């Protein structure tokens, strides 16, 4: 059955239009057969014309994964029916001319229209915004802009599959070095079947002159998306990376199990920002993305820095803990997060800061907003190892509760093995104060605007970590996500 008609049918059956990005692109896709076994892993690897070492790595992961059956993480607060991993497609790619697009002109115009609807007109961005976009559509990267300009600086910014061909040494050196294939159930699954993603390498001494950006989108029905991103900032380099996610509306749940690995060497810095707006399901909790993601960075070098910023408004379930391993002396890890759950959304998200090197510092600012029947959990670990002399952590977790049927939870783990460390953790949970609402309304704002103003103020510390245009988008998303939650 051609996917185009199947997907269109799905979409026709969905009523309502609250989710702005809930359209499906009508193009033919190339599928691997449904289900998962070694042949599928081989199929994916062959499709991508991968070298043998990568196939072997995938197979190792797959075999490990089969040994993990029924070992899906159960410790988080999220609840969902069991996932049938055999009832999904593990590879889907738009069908196109065999060699893929050489330039934007060769990209399927239907795809480009998709991006326009998403608000990322590639051409315009190329010209106006100075944002280089690597767009991942279902499983393969379809267009990369700005590549040439970056190439002049020696920066590699390309689809993961291309990096495997063009920069196999770098990929082989770093792939799995931060998140090993055996890390956890979903990361292991990803290692076996990952489809595509972004690869970034910033050479020594180079400051990437523009924001690098990727938009992920799950389009075809019944496909899991398993992208894999690897960013390496060599010594004395800097890069800021932005990731946005949307997916069409569907009744069934879809799995998204990505892995992101970051590595910084001496004096290097990576800023990684995510705006996650996958389809959250409808008002009754039907459908939506299961967003089970492993993101981790390693500050390998001295004075290096990794900063995660995330705005999580989408997905039926979010399960992710962007973490930093602070190995290099004086290295810095940051985590700034806004997570919103409305209707029946669930989020269990937070971070791990592992202090290994001397004088390592970390900051965690987490803002959780729960409305409707949403459940929002901050779960975080701050671990100071015996050698991490002078380590510092500051953590602040605030929960805002809107309505009496939601939940906001805080689960911090603090483990200190060095007496010179200083770790401070604070958390609060409350509803929006009636006094604040009244004050705003006395100045003429209606209830919804008043809530919006106060909630945005609540998230300010996180939003100000985003580049301006993304901060504006994040604010809008927040308003949309909370629509109808007050009144």
């Amino acid at each position: 059955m051609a996917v185009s008609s199947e997907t269109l049918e799905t979409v026709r059956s969905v009523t309502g239009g609250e989710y702005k990005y809930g359209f499906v692109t009508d193009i033919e896709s190339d599928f691997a057969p449904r289900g998962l076994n070694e042949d599928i892993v081989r199929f994916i690897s062959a499709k991508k014309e991968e070298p043998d070492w990568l196939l072997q790595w995938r197979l190792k992961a797959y075999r490990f994964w089969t040994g993990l059956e029924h070992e899906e993480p159960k410790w988080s607060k999220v609840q969902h029916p069991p996932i049938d991993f055999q009832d999904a497609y593990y590879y889907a790619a738009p069908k196109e001319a065999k060699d893929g697009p050489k330039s934007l002109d060769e990209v399927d115009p239907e795809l480009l229209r998709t991006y326009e609807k998403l608000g990322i007109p590639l051409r315009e961005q190329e010209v106006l915004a100075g944002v280089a976009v690597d767009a991942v559509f279902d499983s393969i990267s379809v267009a990369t802009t700005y590549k040439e300009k970056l190439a002049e600086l020696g920066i590699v910014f390309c689809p993961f599959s291309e990096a495997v061909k063009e920069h196999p040494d770098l990929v082989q050196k770093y792939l799995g070095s931060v998140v090993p294939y055996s890390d956890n159930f979903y990361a292991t699954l990803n290692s076996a079947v990952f489809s595509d993603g972004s690869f970034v390498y910033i050479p020594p001494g180079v400051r990437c002159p523009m924001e690098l950006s990727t938009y992920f989108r799950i389009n075809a029905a019944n496909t899991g998306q398993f992208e894999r991103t690897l960013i390496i900032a060599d010594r004395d380099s800097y890069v800021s990376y932005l990731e946005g996610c949307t997916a069409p509306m569907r009744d069934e749940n879809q799995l998204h199990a990505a892995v992101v690995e970051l590595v910084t060497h001496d004096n290097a810095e990576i800023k990684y920002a995510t705006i996650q707006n996958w389809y959250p399901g409808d008002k009754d909790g039907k459908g939506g993305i299961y967003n089970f993601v492993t993101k981790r960075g390693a500050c390998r070098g001295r004075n290096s820095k990794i900063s995660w910023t995330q705005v999580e408004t989408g997905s039926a379930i979010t399960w992710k803990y962007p973490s930093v391993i602070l190995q290099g002396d004086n290295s810095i890890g940051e985590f700034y997060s806004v997570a919103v759950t409305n209707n029946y959304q669930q989020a269990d998200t937070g971070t791990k800061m592992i202090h290994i090197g001397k004088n390592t510092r970390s900051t965690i600012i987490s803002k959780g907003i729960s409305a409707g029947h949403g459940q929002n959990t901050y779960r975080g670990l701050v671990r100071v190892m015996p050698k991490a002399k002078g380590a510092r952590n500051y953590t602040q977790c605030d929960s805002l509760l809107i309505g009496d049927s939601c939940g906001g939870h805080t689960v911090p783990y603090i483990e200190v093995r060095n007496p010179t460390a200083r770790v401070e953790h604070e958390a609060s949970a409350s509803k929006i104060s009636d006094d604040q609402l009244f004050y705003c309304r006395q100045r003429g704002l209606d209830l919804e605007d008043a809530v919006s103003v106060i909630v945005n103020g609540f998230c300010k510390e996180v939003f100000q970590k985003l580049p301006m245009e993304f901060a504006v988008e994040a604010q809008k998303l927040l308003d949309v996500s909370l629509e109808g939650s007050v009144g």
Partner: protein
Amino acid sequence: MTVPAHRDASGVHEATCKAYLDRFAAKRAELPGAGLPWLDAWRERAIERFAEHGFPSPRLEEWKFTNLSKLAETVFEPIPSAANGISREDLGGYRLEGASDHLLVFVNGRLRPDLSDTGAPGEGVTVTGLSRALEDDAEAVEESLIGAGDPSAGERASALGQLNAAFMGDGAVIRVAANAQPERPVHLLFLAHADKEPAGMHPRNLIHAGEGAKLTVIESYVGLSDGPYWTNAVTHVTAEKGAAIQHFKFQAEGAGAFHIAATDVDLHENAAYTSFVMSLGGILARNEIRARYNGEGVHCALKGVSLARGRQHLDTTTRVDHLMPSGVTDETYKGIVDDRARSVFRGKIRVAPGAQKTNAYQLNQNLLLSDRAQADSKPELEIFADDVKCGHGSTVGDIDAEALFYLRARGLEEREARTLLIEAFLGQLIDDIEIGPVRAMAREAFTGWLAGLDG
């Protein structure tokens, strides 16, 4: 969601578990209240559950930071022999001289009426030993035990609580009649003198304050020997409507002792409960308090200090369930950790759906004094209502170098300055104890501990 219990697969634990099952089979007829059908069945069910779960493993979230494998290596004789040599003179400073009318002294888990003072009647307070109560008024005990919830079922149980239920020896039964407000505290003194064998004590205390009643109770656990023994205590506290209970506990077990204590607290409408735990004894100790707010307007203050040195492992675990609106929780636990010791805090506050107007705060602070000292802290909030004010704070650090310098610049010697700052870290918590003799006892213990610092 709770993680399913994993049975520890190690052969040592299996053998220990089996030894306890065998002891139970052999000695059940000698246990207090043997022959009471409900109690026999209750103990039976408990030992079965213990057999099913075994010793909790660190893979269980509840025991993540506290590893019991050392405890599980030894079989602690669950019906220990009495140490008859102890006389009134030996009680010495452990008594609260002049402060309490009611003193129950337990030696190796058994009530010693010859060392105890049951106090003047007529204040609306009755204080008896559990073993005695099972003889005199088994029905009332049954009601208290069953009323406090089946200890061998549900979330409040742990495998060790089940072992206590199976071997429950003696303990205190304290009842305060409605509106009775005895002036002086009831003091429970648990002495351990285990020089012959590793003794396992499983005391169980039942404390009940009727409507509008007031009670102050002090539990002391004191080791008279340094050899290994195990206190596995369970205490049930019930405060009826408008009742107020102050509960102090001193844990000063012997150097080789294991101390595991669970206190279940049921609080009804407008009840007030204040707890202060001072923990400085034992090689491994865990004080667990589980409080449930069954009525509106409950006030609960949970405070405590842990003073750990050597290779001590001191664990404070609290769980507070706001089941009804307008409850107030104020928690502060502080730990000072020296040498290779470790302090653990796990505190969970849960606000149930509908428990609006809850106001809850928990604070955990740890001061690390040596390179190999460790602290773990896990304050946790689980909130299912919106009109609440909840929060927590947790800090870990060493002595503030600037403050130390400041004091030395004012002429203090480093050792003095350090002691002063350590004292300042938790002195206030002790000063806030309302009952004079208790405050004095805590102060003395703290001063004694400070004197033992290496400097």
